[in-house]
């Protein structure tokens, strides 16, 4: 049995998932919330974005189950000797991607290459020549890489895409069947409804997005065991593997930092708006002070302090990963500690408005205690503000991480993150010939994550804030009659 390792961010991330499930259950129970969320659920762009986000979240969660594998018993050890565990902490994702993780080249190599990026002295037929050396792993199965490379890559790509296509077909059929499983309508009719967008939930958009992901995954799965799909970096590590690992860092920063702002923002915002007067003055003073300090400097100050703390107490952390992880966790907390001012300001304004309303006055007249009024009458009515700000902040934080890593106060240098990838790309781009793939990989993954979060966030914003709905961009004319007003009669039951 491997030894399970619980890192601080793992616990936090899974805690977050539990919280989201709990919130979803709460939404189902509350008719008004359900109605509001329905507009998000029926928005094709938002739901496609949600599919992409689910993919990223899935990767991040797989990467958040850590363990230390059991080492084989030493020869001659006593039978009752305590089990020895590997000093390396791995995640389930590491375990799944063992091959690319272990396939370490000497230095740079171009995506899908079979030979190194720079010439080296190699011995051919007893003579020393300068040539591009064969890679240890990339294309190692080929006898004559120069001749067989193109056909091999093409063959494997076709195989991978074919496998992906099968996956896509299964996916479409599965969704079509699940939609009608209760009403026992025919699956073909359901498929037709999906294709013609006659469904309440925009299944077609979601399935198209998912299909693209599955196709890409199929292609990568076919090639990755034999080649470095996105090349290798300076120390010969697989770039795509690094990008996959960076997803978790981005998700952790984006979600935990937002989460960490909430307690301060909610408590201080509501207290200031409810009690007004002295309390308000003190809280306003606090957040004006915090926001007057340039945020990078404030974060840098905190991070430098943590660094001193970690250096002073090395015995607290068993493995290097634990040390790196506590830094990631604290970084997210710091981002929260320093970033609650803007949300607190919004909540204060909202509470000021609410506390003058009749129902709050009535509660007060009935002698309900202040704490109960805030908890029962104010908090539920400001949650939409919290929700909007939380989803809008996520993408900004993911982008911010890259900047902080550049400044040198971001994640631990050993942690894979988009920031560290971009940093290394900085020198790589000025090489000749250019090493472009690290930047390209970081760019592709980061834009996909941030962009989908932006689209999802703007749909949530429009659903919860009627003012934002007025400024919504509509696609002029084109598909209006089909998608925007689905005729109820044409809807196949089962949504």
């Amino acid at each position, binding site marked *: 049995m491997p030894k399970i390792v619980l890192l601080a961010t793992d616990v936090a991330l899974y805690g977050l998932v539990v919280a989201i499930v709990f919130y979803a259950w709460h939404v189902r129970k509350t008719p008004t919330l359900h109605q509001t969320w329905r507009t998000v659920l029926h928005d094709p762009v938002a739901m496609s974005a949600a599919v992409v986000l689910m993919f990223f979240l899935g990767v991040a969660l797989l990467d958040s189950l850590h363990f230390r594998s059991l080492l084989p018993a030493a020869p001659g050890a006593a039978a009752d000797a305590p089990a020895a565990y590997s000093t390396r902490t791995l995640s389930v994702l590491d375990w799944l991607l063992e091959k690319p993780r272990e396939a370490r080249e000497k230095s740079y190599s171009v995506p899908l290459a079979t030979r190194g990026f720079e010439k080296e002295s190699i011995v051919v037929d007893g003579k020393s020549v300068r040539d591009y050396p064969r890679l240890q792993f990339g294309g190692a199965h080929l006898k004559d890489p120069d001749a067989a490379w193109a056909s091999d890559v093409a063959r494997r790509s076709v195989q991978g895409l074919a496998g992906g296509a099968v996956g896509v077909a299964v996916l479409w059929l599965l969704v079509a069947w699940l939609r009608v499983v209760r009403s026992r309508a025919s699956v073909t009719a359901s498929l037709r409804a999906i294709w013609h967008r006659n469904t309440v939930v925009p299944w077609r958009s979601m399935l198209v997005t998912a299909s693209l992901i599955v196709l890409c995954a199929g292609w990568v799965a076919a090639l990755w065991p034999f080649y470095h799909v996105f090349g290798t970096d300076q120390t010969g590590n697989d770039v795509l593997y690094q990008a996959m690992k960076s997803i978790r860092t981005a998700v952790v920063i984006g979600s935990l930092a937002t989460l960490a702002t909430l307690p301060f923002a909610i408590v201080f915002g509501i207290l200031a708006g409810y009690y007004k007067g002295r309390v308000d003055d003190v809280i306003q*003073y606090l957040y*004006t*002070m915090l*926001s*007057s*300090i*340039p945020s*990078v*400097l*404030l974060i*840098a*100050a*905190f991070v*430098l*302090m943590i*660094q*001193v*703390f970690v*250096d*002073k107490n*090395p015995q607290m952390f068993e493995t290097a990963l634990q040390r790196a992880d506590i830094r990631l966790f604290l970084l997210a907390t710091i981002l929260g500690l320093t970033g609650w001012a803007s949300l607190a300001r919004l909540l204060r304004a909202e509470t000021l408005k609410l506390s003058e309303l009749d129902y709050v006055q009535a509660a007060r007249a009935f002698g309900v205690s202040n704490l109960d009024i805030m908890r029962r009458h104010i908090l539920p009515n400001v949650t939409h503000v919290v929700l909007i700000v939380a989803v809008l902040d996520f*993408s900004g934080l993911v*982008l911010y991480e*890259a*900047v902080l890593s*550049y*400044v*040198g*106060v971001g994640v631990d240098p050993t942690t894979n993150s*988009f920031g560290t990838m*971009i940093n290394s*790309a*900085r020198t790589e*781009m*000025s090489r000749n010939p*250019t090493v472009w793939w690290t*930047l390209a990989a970081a*760019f592709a993954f*980061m*834009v996909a994550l*941030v*962009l989908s979060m*932006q*689209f999802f966030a*703007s749909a949530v914003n429009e659903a919860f804030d009627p003012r*934002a709905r*007025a*400024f919504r*961009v*509509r*696609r*002029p004319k084109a598909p209006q009659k089909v998608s925007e007003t689905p005729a109820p009669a044409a809807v196949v039951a089962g949504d």
Partner: protein
Amino acid sequence: MINYILRRIGYGVLILIGVNLFTFMLFFTVNTPDDMARMNIGGKRVTQDAIEKWKVERGYDKPLFWNAKAEGLDKLRKTIFVERSVQLFAFDFGASDSGRDIGYELKRRVGPSIALAIPTFILGIFVVIVFSLLLVFFRNTYVEFWGVTAAVFLLSISSLFYIIVGQFFFSKLLKLVPISGFAGGADLFIFLALPVLIGIASRLGGEALFYRTMFLEEIGKDYVRTARSKGLSETVVLFRHVLRNAFLPILTSTVAVLPLLFLGALIMESFFGIPGLGSYTIDAINSQDFAVVRSMVFVGSVLYIIGLILTDISYTVADPRIRLS
């Protein structure tokens, strides 16, 4: 009016005192000067002698708040708190941990920072307003749809990408401008062209979307309907009426960030090798020079507070209906 401004300044000073205390606590009591010395000299196997020497050289060997050994007022004055923290109010920054005078560095570096920040800021506002006005002018057409989509896309790209790709494309491939560096005189333009361009591009997406909603909000108001019903053309309505009225919030929001321009652009300066305050800060963070970081925190909050006060004043100047009291 004068009364009000004085009160705001008083409040600002109060905030500064808070910032000062807060950073002092963060830098000196959470971790002792011993820890800082150890980190600065490097490694865990540092002798106590080396630490003491490091502290004496930088004046960190004194007690934090109360010097029992000194005489009279010096009991208070010869402490780290007064020497390193209270002195900031007199803009006496002292020496950095590497021994150079911070005040002199600040004076020397504010010029290049401004040279980069002001053109970026002014041109940036101009470009953003033009772009968002175009979006509003072509509302409910494909121009708006794709314009907004492009803006969201631009918004989703890390500013670091703009810099790296910009340097690669303009400096390495096209060889139009030098990759990085800084010089006075006529060369200034060559060195600043790319950073200014990238600075504008990286902010365009987010700000254009923000300005667009501001214009749209304005366009739904009664006076716009009246102007249209008078038979004015859409262009006139947009540029004469809407732009003028939307300018008030734009103006007041820019006034708040105006003083912060002095702080310089962290990333931009360090990527392009511009010897301004932004790159100074980054260097200080990288070399863990706490004295410089503390000074920059203080300067930053001073500028922020000036921005707050200027915003209040600009409200009254721009809109006579608002009275300060």
